[in-house]
């Protein structure tokens, strides 16, 4: 009521306000620096200057995780015996290993975008891997229906089972309004128990290079390779498709008078994708055998992971569902008032995270040639959270991209693989996991703090 008391004796107050307003400085000056460079740059040089200003202002995008990846790679290359770390054989291993973290982090990322967390996906992944692994097993009795499935049918069934698990957990969280942390922690223990029961009855589970085509296909996700010519062809097709769509979008925007990045930037981005793809395919197409038979080619898991990252990017950034995920994560009340179905968005996020975890579990079964009761789903989920957060996804919701899961998962995989190369026992891996998670959360907190201090300048 201060305004009432202050002016009750003076009818001239509005005019005074006008005078003050006209004397006030430009309102936009405060907020200018933090605007993404794509929006204001008219040329490549301007873009990089704007980008550099933004990094200096504390909003570095994926720069920290890329830097971390380089540091980790250089460090382990120096300390590993015979500098084996950056050999093509180990790099392909590293991709295989990271794949599980990346896929888990993709699903976890959607939940994190909402400001929630899903701690169950480690053991949900185990359930997915077990379902697919068991369904393709050739032995007939006691129940014919649950064996000898085609590999694709087994994968679909596993993903559907996991999606159902996610639907149950998501419904409990949203309908009973319980914290996702607690519900999914309960889920973690519950599915751990279920995993042990199933594996106990089945006497463990293994997939390998057997005569059964379906078992071989599951195993082959990590250990079957694209033909060399096919991988190059696929690369060309993918780069052309992505490049054409980026180019068409930017020229379309320019033609209809909307702000678009300079053409040079579009070209540079396409060129970057092409070069990264060439390096990746070239590494995989080196002969990495140490024995007699050559081992050459891109493992199927690489296109699988890239397709999932691409799909998640499309879902999050180009669909209404994705837009609503960001909105709910940024301001659930605003989203609700704008007519967004907040409850269904949150439920679907848990379904998605569980379903992608199912795929991650299948990849894990392939990578390890099976699964035992030693599978550590608790550690996997922490790696997944760490991967997403290291990549740049915020634990507080509203900020994160699919590419963060890719870069963060690679970083986690690179550390994990490096420790393995050094022959460190398992206890040191746990310590490293803890430190990495702590570092990731600290980076997230620091990024948020600098973002907040930036917005203090707002009037």
């Amino acid at each position, binding site marked *: 009521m201060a305004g009432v008391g202050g*002016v009750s004796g003076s009818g001239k107050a509005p005019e005074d*306000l006008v005078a003050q307003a006209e004397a*006030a400085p430009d309102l936009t000056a405060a*907020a200018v620096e933090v605007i*993404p460079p794509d929006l204001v740059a008219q040329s490549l040089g301007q873009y990089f200057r704007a980008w550099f200003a933004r990094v200096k202002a504390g909003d570095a995008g994926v720069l920290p995780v890329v830097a971390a990846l380089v540091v980790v790679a250089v460090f382990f290359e120096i300390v590993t015996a015979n500098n084996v770390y950056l050999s093509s054989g180990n790099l392909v291993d590293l991709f295989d290993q990271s794949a599980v973290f990346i896929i888990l982090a993709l699903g976890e990322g959607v939940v994190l975008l909402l400001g929630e967390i899903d701690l169950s996906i480690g053991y949900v992944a185990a359930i997915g891997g077990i379902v697919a692994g068991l369904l393709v097993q050739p032995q007939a009795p006691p129940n014919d229906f649950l064996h000898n499935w085609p590999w694709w049918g087994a994968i679909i069934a596993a993903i559907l089972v996991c999606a159902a698990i996610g639907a149950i957990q998501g419904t409990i969280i949203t309908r009973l309004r319980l914290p996702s942390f607690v519900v999914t922690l309960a889920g973690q223990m519950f599915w751990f128990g279920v995993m042990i029961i199933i594996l106990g009855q089945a006497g463990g589970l293994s997939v390998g290079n057997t005569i059964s085509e379906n078992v071989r296909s599951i195993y082959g996700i990590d250990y079957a390779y694209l033909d060399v010519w096919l991988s190059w062809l696929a690369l060309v097709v993918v780069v052309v498709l992505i490049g054409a769509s980026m180019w068409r979008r930017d020229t379309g925007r320019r033609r209809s008078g909307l702000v678009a990045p300079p053409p040079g930037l579009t070209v540079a981005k396409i060129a970057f994708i092409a070069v990264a793809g060439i390096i990746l395919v070239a590494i995989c197409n080196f002969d990495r055998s140490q024995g007699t038979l050559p081992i050459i080619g891109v493992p199927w898991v690489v296109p699988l992971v890239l397709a999932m990252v691409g799909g998640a990017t499309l879902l999050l950034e180009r*669909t209404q569902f994705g837009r609503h995920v960001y909105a709910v*994560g940024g*301001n659930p009340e605003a*989203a609700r008032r704008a007519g967004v179905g907040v409850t269904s968005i949150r439920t679907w996020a848990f379904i998605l995270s569980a379903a992608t975890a199912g795929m991650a579990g299948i990849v894990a079964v392939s990578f390890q040639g099976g699964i035992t009761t030693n599978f550590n789903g608790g550690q996997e989920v922490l790696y997944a959270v760490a991967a997403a957060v290291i990549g740049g996804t915020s634990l507080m919701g509203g900020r994160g991209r699919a590419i963060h899961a890719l870069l963060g998962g690679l970083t986690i995989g690179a550390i994990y693989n490096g420790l393995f190369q050094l022959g460190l026992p398992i206890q040191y891996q746990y310590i490293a996991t803890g430190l990495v998670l702590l570092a990731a959360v600290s980076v997230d907190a620091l990024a948020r703090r600098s973002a907040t201090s930036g917005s203090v300048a*707002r009037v």
Partner: protein
Amino acid sequence: MAMTGIEGPAGGVPAPGGQPLANTLSGTVPLLELRGISKRFGAVQALYGVDLDLPAGQVTALCGDNGAGKSVLTKTIAGIHPPDGGQILWEGRPVHIRSPKDSASLGIETVYQDLALADNLDIVQNMFLGRERLRNMFLNEDSMERAAAETLAGLHVTTVRSIRQPVATLSGGQRQAVAVAKAVMWNSKLVMLDEPTAALGVAQTRMVLDLIKRLKDHGLAVMVISHNLNDVFEVADRIAILHLGRMVAQDRASAFDRQSAVDYMTTGGSTREVAAAGSNQGRN
């Protein structure tokens, strides 16, 4: 329901009935008329037979002390709390507003302070939130961006650097402007603003008040809920004052002065002789 208890509240009520008031103001039927709206939450009677007219092309300020029922009344119009009794007339026809969807389909939009925007989304994304334009399953960003730019230009909101910048990078006034633009984008006929200038600096307040005047010039009915009598007297054509759930005063703004408005807000009545329309006897 206490639907008849309003006709004779504390002395000096400027406009007890809606009809003559509406006629003197615009000569036509108000866009929205509330007749005897009451609302009860359990044991608490929040609104007692409230009458309110919101004519098109005019700014109506809804004032009242804390707990007077401003928010409940706003939410009643917005469909969040459907009334227990009374009648709502839209363009002269009786309507039922039972959900936010009902009010939105009539063309009623509410701008809530700080609740309207998601910080992490950009201006276009916020303006189209919940009503995204799609093309082949995917978001049609270009179409949305053009429409958002047109709306902002129509409201003379020109201070933003890029309509693709996240709302977090905007100043308070700019955020409010985006929230208003979001509300008027949908061919709305009535825009209700909840404390639009609270927590804004002087220059920012000016920007928002200008925006409110522009809405009025576009022919919209505007209702501003505000504590700030500076703002109220600057933009309002009409003032309606709630006190403990009753509409104690409702008239053109010139029928009030600051002291009488404060009297109505704090005591529900005024002994000052300013009520007679057209003869403002304020001490200034």
